[in-house]
């Protein structure tokens, strides 16, 4: 059968957002583990800043509400469950490209999240397979996706999300610059889909002399630009 090498706008969108949401799942779980570690022997104020950044809807009032909510609440877009569901919503549209084997890692993750939610599991270690399967998903996708443009779109989404989260969590310049460099590797593979003006502005802002995430305007601008960069 003649193989189609062209990606439609619908699919391009799904590849990009699949990359973003799956990375969101991974990073959120990573940050949660750090957060819970602080919560073991800390006071409320020790983990409050992390809590605030994860719970963007600001709806959890107690330690327990936060713990369960941030993992399983599908009404709050900041949770692991919401991100995994969105990743699946995009991936399911791409079965013939990423193949059933790759998709199965996300199916298993979502099924496990639902199972843990039903049991009201509070310990984040119950979701360790979600992290493992996320990595397996990326490995499988990279190996099986024959369309390189599609792969670059997905990896661009992954890197943009990584950058977005690192900025939100005030990581230092080295980490941010490294993440941005990593994302840029894919930009040149996607001519016409990257807004060059936005990229130029970012290039000027992500340099040591200007880097200052404690400046709210600077941070807001960076986040805005990062989210305007890809035109899908």
């Amino acid at each position: 059968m003649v193989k189609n090498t062209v990606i439609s706008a619908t699919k391009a969108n799904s590849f990009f957002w699949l990359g973003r949401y799956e990375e969101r799942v991974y990073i959120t779980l990573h940050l949660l583990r750090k957060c819970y570690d602080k919560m073991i022997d800390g006071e409320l104020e020790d983990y409050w800043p992390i809590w605030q950044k994860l719970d963007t809807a600001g709806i959890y009032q107690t330690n327990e509400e936060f713990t369960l909510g941030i993992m399983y609440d599908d009404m709050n877009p900041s949770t692991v469950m919401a991100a995994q569901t969105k990743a699946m919503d995009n991936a399911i549209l791409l079965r013939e490209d990423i193949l059933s084997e790759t998709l199965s890692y996300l199916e298993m993750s979502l099924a496990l999240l639902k199972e843990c939610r039903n049991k009201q599991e509070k310990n984040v270690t119950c979701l360790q397979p979600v992290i493992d399967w996320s990595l397996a998903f990326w490995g499988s996708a990279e190996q099986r996706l024959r369309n390189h443009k599609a792969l670059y779109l997905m990896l661009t989404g992954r890197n943009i999300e990584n950058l977005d989260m690192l900025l939100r969590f005030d990581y230092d310049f080295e980490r941010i610059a490294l993440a941005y460099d990593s994302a840029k590797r894919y930009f040149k593979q996607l001519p016409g889909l990257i807004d060059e003006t936005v990229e130029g502005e970012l290039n000027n802002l992500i340099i040591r002399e200007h880097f200052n995430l404690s400046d709210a305007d600077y941070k807001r601008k960076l986040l805005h630009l990062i989210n305007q960069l890809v035109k899908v």
Partner: protein
Amino acid sequence: MNIRINELIDSRDTVNKWMERFGVRFGVYKHGIFNEQLFPFDSIPRIISHSDWAYLEEGLKQRVMVLNKFLWDVYHDKRIIKDGVIPEEFVYASKGYMPECEGISPIDEVYAHIAGIDLVEGKDGQWYVLEDNLRIPSGASYPMIAREITRKVSPQTFTQNAVAENRDYSKLLSTMMEEMNDDRGISVILTPGRYNSAYFEHSYFAEKTGATLAYPGDLFVEDNKVYYAGIYKEKTRVGCIYRRVSDEYMDPMIFEASSLLGIPNVMQAYKAGNVALINAIGNGVADDKGIYYFVPKMVEYYLGEKPILQNAPTYLPYFKDDYDYVLENIQKLVIKDVSEAGGYGVVFGRDLDDKKLKELKDLIINEPRRWIAQEVIDFKDLEILEDDKLVERKADLRAFVISGKETKVWPSGLTRFSRNPNSFVVNSSQGGGFKDTWVMEG
């Protein structure tokens, strides 16, 4: 034959777990809300002997070939109507008849490239055709993936049983699509989208055949040719569309104007012979429940042969004798509304009280053309596993016949069973489950 039934029973949960892993689901709309659910799989297969299959294969080929001839005739010469074999009102009053298809000649005169023929096996071993599905028959993906998984989970079962391969359904499909495509461009499967009840199947077939899964908006027509639109404004010629969108939504310029699922002007491209549509538009006229009655007559008319497969004994209240018989015997018959599908519009006379029977009779009296009546076939029960116990339930078989340059019958099929002990309705949309269908090699 040693089917290792205990091993299959033990494997049921593992197989269902794998089904979940691969997202084997179907969607159901209830009260306007879309829900996806797993299609319950029973690991004990339906087994069809080599000799039974040889008979079915021959009969299915004959039936589908004749239905294709009928469709050509309806949209061209209309000999069968002119010769008085089928009354014209059964053709032209059918909801599936599309006057817009008059004179259109699909490639190789094939209309029903994929036919799903629903059969039941009577307790006496006689097979009966219950329904022909020539529009968008679905369900082949389920036994296909079930076989893939069962072979993984219980390899010994297949070492010890010579079961005909069924995972090559995708090869049958892709070969037929290539033949119809005739090197004009890429082949696509057009899906209405993720919220279609059979979306799993659409995406799975795309994966297995190598066709592109196209969504509404991905395809457009220019100069009577169909193209797939790329994100860089590239356009790739499309030669064949396996469409999973109903006739009436396929072209908003000709049919339902509000349709966002179709491709504007695709009918022009189709008419010009620039794209193959699988299945052809207008096939509904041949799988109409009213036309079903005439299929054995078609076999004799077009082929001069006796029909190999039997219809269930059927009455058309349109004819005076049948009308009298149906009204007199309504309590022992199953009455079907010809305009319904998916197990809807099917009423068993024995389940109705006097008041309801009277209401049904009135409906038949007022609109005799709208109904058919059939004798209730005491069809064979199949064993299924329910709560770790073996119980017997009604089951049917949807056989799939693929027609390209040749007509081929897939040596398997979707066996659907009712989970309700008192029900003959096996449709997945009404809670039924499914089994793999084993065709034994000689």
